[in-house]
């Protein structure tokens, strides 16, 4: 293997951090995007009464 352990682990570690930051920002935006609010509320309520069979 050409790449040494040192470089590999440095790349791994820094990449991991950036990935973490990007992912958390992305998810926060998704979860708090106002346009999804209605959809989420609807989904949350949807499980309460779902025994009527598949809708068609």
């Amino acid at each position, binding site marked *: *293997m050409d790449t040494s*352990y040192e470089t590999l*682990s440095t790349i*791994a570690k820094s990449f991991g951090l950036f*990935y973490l930051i990007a992912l958390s920002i992305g998810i926060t935006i998704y979860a708090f995007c106002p346009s999804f609010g209605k959809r989420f509320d609807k989904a949350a309520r949807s499980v309460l009464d779902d025994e009527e069979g598949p809708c068609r």
Partner: protein
Amino acid sequence: MLRKILKPFSKFFEFHARTHYRAERHSMGLTIGIIAAAAVGGFVEIAPLFSIDDTVEADPNMRVYTPLEQAGRDIYIREGCYACHSQMIRTLRDEVDRYGPYSLAVESQYDHPMLWGSKRTGPDLARVGEKFSDEWQVQHLADPRSLVPESVMPQYAFLLNTSLETASLPGRLAALRTVGVPYTDEQVANAADDARGQAIPDSDRAYAVEERYGEATNIRFFDGRRDRLTEMDALVAYLQILGGLSDLPRNMQIPEGD
């Protein structure tokens, strides 16, 4: 502009969106998202470890398991000994005082799989080799409470009465070679004979074992019986080599524990 270019295709897009695309988009997106989020952590932690040269200290004198020891290791695994005994001495002062120099990565370099364990219902065995005599080990395995009255270890007397199956040993060594243990062709081909030889000192087979695996190899009547090769022979041979594959830990200075 973009809209103009795409216009001829709008029918296709609409159709696509109405049927397949719409239903699949979310679940595929979710799948990709989960894989993307879940794959990275393992990759970051595990991949660098495969640039092994830097991870594992080098020991040119590192021994491989003889066929008899490997057979014993397989019995150790079969009986689930790893559920109660670890083989990993941590870099803590009390562990070093109790069990010996802390374990180095190189020592389990040829352990497929590793048997570091996760629980010590019994003591650590990483350096148990040659701490006790063969007789003690045999007696302890056959009836632990005759030597340690407080022990809760299961008794393994049946190992004394079970002949060791050696026919599959060449295949096992070959498989181990495939995954990276440096066995020679000769060692693989003679594995079954060597397993017998290691338990019959002063025989031609025993000399062959010495030649193939080195002078330091333990060649003894491990279970105390000369007439047959039992699973007890193999297991005791394995236990007696634990911690003895590499001299590196003993030669390195023992640092203070945290």
